């Protein structure tokens, strides 16, 4: 790693100010950033840990019934504490491994927007609101292609607000080495329609599979999307699976997510 300064502020305001330094970067759990830095693929001048900021920790329910999760909340805490939104808790419980879940944070994952990460699918399918120190961003506007988001330089995700659907489920088919999603599909059924978000598959990062959303909004059952799969154009093709295979998996996992959502509590 290249060397850097380290700061651990205790308020959002101090963190924002610390991030004002040129090439400073926020540090969530570091589970992706630190390995990247070990390969010398990133060289921040300063890392600003968000772990000491109490107001960015924890889970609560908002006045509108949405689940509000602090940006520095770990995957383990979401897995254990998001019982009101079982689909999301299940997603968090399947990220990485126990030690990674103990450090990694929701804000860190969403800010990084790895094309194979789980949280982007959960946030996009939920129609979540990404709350930063400066503004609120709708999930539909937030994800802008792999490793690219609407965040500005120095902007911190302080909270993520998840509307809680009537039924939901996340299905992840693991890439066997990294245990990231080879393909992951999050299905969320709301009173006004169904949202389906797919991670791991597309060269453009997480996306909504609108064709399935339309079919499922009319008939929330796996039968509504039998034999349906997105086109293979634009899907990732690598050592672990071709574009056609990934496209096929999107269909399979969406059906499984719908079936599971119907048989399990929200």
């Amino acid at each position, binding site marked *: 790693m290249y060397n850097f300064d380290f700061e*651990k502020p205790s308020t959002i305001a101090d963190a924002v100010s610390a991030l004002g330094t040129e090439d400073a970067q926020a540090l969530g759990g570091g589970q992706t950033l630190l*390995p990247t830095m070990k390969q010398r693929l990133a060289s921040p001048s300063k890392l600003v840990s968000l772990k000491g900021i109490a107001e960015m920790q924890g889970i609560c329910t908002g006045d509108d019934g949405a689940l509000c999760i602090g940006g520095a909340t770990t995957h383990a805490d979401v897995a254990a504490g998001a019982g009101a939104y079982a689909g999301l808790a299940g997603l968090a419980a399947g990220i990485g491994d126990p030690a990674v879940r103990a*450090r990694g944070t929701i804000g860190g994952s969403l800010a990084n927007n790895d094309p194979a990460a789980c949280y982007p699918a959960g946030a996009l399918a939920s129609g979540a609101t990404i709350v930063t120190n400066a503004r609120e961003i709708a999930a539909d506007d937030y994800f802008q292609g792999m490793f690219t988001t609407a965040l500005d330089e120095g902007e911190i995700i302080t909270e993520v607000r998840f509307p809680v659907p009537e039924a939901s489920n996340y299905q992840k088919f693991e890439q066997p080495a990294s245990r990231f999603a080879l393909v992951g599909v999050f299905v969320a059924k709301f009173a006004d329609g169904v949202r389906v978000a797919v991670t791991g598959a597309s060269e453009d990062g997480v996306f909504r599979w609108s064709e399935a959303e339309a079919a499922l909004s009319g008939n929330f059952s796996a039968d509504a999307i039998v034999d349906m799969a997105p086109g293979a154009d634009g899907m990732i093709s690598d050592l672990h699976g071709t574009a056609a295979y990934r496209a096929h998996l999107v269909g399979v996992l969406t059906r499984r997510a719908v079936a599971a959502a119907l048989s399990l509590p929200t």
Partner: protein
Amino acid sequence: MSQVTMTVNGKEMSGDAEGRTLLSQFLRETLGLTGTHVGCDTSQCGACVVHVDGVAVKSCTMLAMEAEGASVDTIEGQAAQDGTLNALQQAFQDHHGLQCGFCTPGMIMSAADLLKSNPNPTEAEVRHHLEGNICRCTGYHNIVKAIMAASGQDVSSIAAE
């Protein structure tokens, strides 16, 4: 360089660290606690697992400075003062849950983390909990068996005694 202080295996310890000094590096090189091993650089293998404030983490993917003021438990602190192995360590020896020993510290620390929250895990739960710990020697058979035995379960019916 600045000074970092943490409580390691119940004793307060200090040492110099740069921003980039990893917790694993601080434990091994600064404090001389070489029982914590480093087997990869992408946070997969788990040989470096220690407990920070009671939670299992990968010490190669945490900065030493992030552990300032924390309570850190490592493999060196698991046995009793007189060297008597704890129940989990003893089960690993009894059931041949290690061969070369390199992944073992991380395995023990991860297994201890599991048994704390789930004192009576099923085989599937044990295997799932070890998702982040790679062993190349044992094929996992005797590791899983040892962890189940340490939890007080009868493992005598498991194949290949």
